[in-house]
């Protein structure tokens, strides 16, 4: 059976990584063998989960839940080894100084390798990834679009040959709603909502994708207005001020909720968890996520 592949993205600072981790926890708890993937050279989840290290090989966080760090270099290396099969030849290729330098910066190559690995299961190409669910904690919007665009761009530049073929097959899987899902994480504030609206429209127009929206740190159950009026008689100035601000925040959240609901009527709301403890935050969020 094909794994479920979920891409998580959104504006910087909206809590992508936290939401991706909560989603992974949720999947693992429901019995799916889940891999949470972060992209790049530096691990965020290492300190987040208090792990010894996080690298290319998956590390277990808890039962059925592992985390891995993929860089374009690593993905490409693994893929090429898989293709060449002869260790000596592969060494020759990768230890060549020119090749080393080239792979680091070649346009779209690292992005293509990452997306190629993520979709290797359904494409039946490349080394096996034995998971029921793969959750990709992707970069923020701009870099995410570069990830998405690598396969389409490369199949445009290289029409013939294996590279073009692979690019087209990756692109096809990314557009298949039966295989790939997209979660846009957003905050109930003007700028993140606007960026979400733009990204939503772009994914739809360029790839025919309908993303799911997660509105993070949003008030799901508003306080009754009577509480705010009652607070006006408080002798505590700070509390009165808090009440005034909270009322404004509540109104803003409602407005933003309605705005994103016009894009995704099934937008999921996640509350703010007032805790500094990772496990408490993740458990609470996983319990709310559908």
């Amino acid at each position, binding site marked *: 059976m094909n794994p479920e592949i979920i891409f998580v993205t959104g*504006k910087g*600072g909206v809590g992508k990584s936290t939401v991706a981790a909560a989603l992974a926890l949720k999947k693992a708890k429901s019995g799916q063998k889940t891999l949470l993937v972060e992209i790049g050279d530096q691990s965020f989840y290492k300190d987040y989960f208090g792990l010894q290290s996080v690298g290319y090989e998956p590390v277990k966080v808890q039962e059925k839940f592992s985390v891995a760090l993929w860089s374009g270099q690593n993905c490409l290396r693994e893929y090429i080894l898989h293709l060449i099969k002869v260790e000596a030849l592969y060494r020759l290729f990768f230890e060549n100084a020119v090749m080393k330098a080239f792979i680091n910066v070649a*346009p779209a190559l690292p992005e293509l390798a990452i997306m190629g690995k993520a979709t290797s299961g359904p494409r039946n190409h490349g080394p096996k990834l034995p998971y029921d669910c793969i959750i990709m904690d992707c970069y923020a919007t701009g*870099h995410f679009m570069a990830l998405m665009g690598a396969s389409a761009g490369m199949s445009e*530049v*290289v029409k013939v040959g*294996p590279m073009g073929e692979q690019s087209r097959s990756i692109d096809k899987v990314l557009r298949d709603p039966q295989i790939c899902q997209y979660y846009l994480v957003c905050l109930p504030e003007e700028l993140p909502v606007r960026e979400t609206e733009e990204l939503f429209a772009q994914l739809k127009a360029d790839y025919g994708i309908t993303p799911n929206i997660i509105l993070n740190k949003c008030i799901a159950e508003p306080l009754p207005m009577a509480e705010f009026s009652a607070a006006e008689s408080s002798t*505590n100035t700070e509390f009165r001020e808090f009440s005034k601000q909270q009322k404004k925040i509540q109104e803003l959240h409602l407005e933003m909720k309605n705005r994103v609901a016009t894009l995704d009527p099934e937008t999921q709301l996640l509350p703010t968890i007032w805790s500094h403890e990772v496990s408490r935050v993740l458990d609470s969020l996983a319990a709310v996520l559908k």
Partner: protein
Amino acid sequence: MKILVCVGNGGVGKTTLAAAMGVSAAKKGAKVLVLTIDPAKRLATTLGIEGNKDICKVPGQTFKGELYASIVDHKKTFDDFVLRAAAKSEVAKKLFDNKLYQQLSTSLSGSQDFSALEKLYSVYESNEFDLIILDTPPAKHAIDFLNAPQKLAVLFNDSVARWFRDSKSSSARSRIMSVINAGTKQVLNILENITGSELLRQLADFFISIEQWQDKLEDRIVKVHKMMTNPETKFCLVTSFDRAKLRESEYFLTELRKGGYHINSIVMNRSYPEWLNLNEAVSRGSPAGTEGLFALYKEEKEFYSYRDEIYSAFAKKYGVETKVLRLPEAREPISDLAGLEKMSEIIMSQGDSR
């Protein structure tokens, strides 16, 4: 001339902070330029740079000095650089049409970082300002910004370029095959097997266009590096506030120091609501009918007070060598000049940011 570089992860409010710091300096009498990357529309309007690619004087200011702003136009900066680097304009034109170049100049991660630094250098060279404040492109990790030019330079390195150029035509290829060693030949074959001959052809075209660039690019990179490590160039690390982010900041500070850069401040942005007083305990009792609200008030106050302790520990550790500033979440989102001025006052009250 001084430079202040605002670095940090995406979504931490770098652009607004860069603008507010510009206001602080202009108030003190300096002629300041704020170079932004991707400002929100309302902020761009405030700065007078919406839909404009030139350097503009910020409208409505009554400062002792002068405040200017500009948006870095990546495509144009990159193309300008190419035009200057290419000896003949036909070569540049041919390159602009190359599909790989189009990918490279627009979507390649690192190309934005390169053009931001390139733009900064050209303004720096003009010597028209007392201070330039640079807002940096969003990056997963702040350190990526500084490594981008070197990474990009490798692509233009002549040994790489020659490699692909020489693979262009079969005759040239067979000629070169006789001189390069068997190992390289095999590597090229492997690449061709994996990617196909068309990509190799595209690459060859690309590298033929950028022939003889290496010197110019390397010269530029050396100059930019000199500018960035100059003691007059300071870094301001902007971060949001949670444990994982603080750890990232610590890592970044270490990397900056290792690289010979000068840090002058760490700003924890939007770290507590302006309307909560963290020095005061929650006073007991609340009017009837405010149970839900009061519970939330207490919860938030506890949360931010605990955060304050983490902050104090961090400030104690790093405050010796560099300024640590903590800015609140404002009552209203900051988008007009008055909001920027207010923010600049908070910055100045916590210590000079220059």
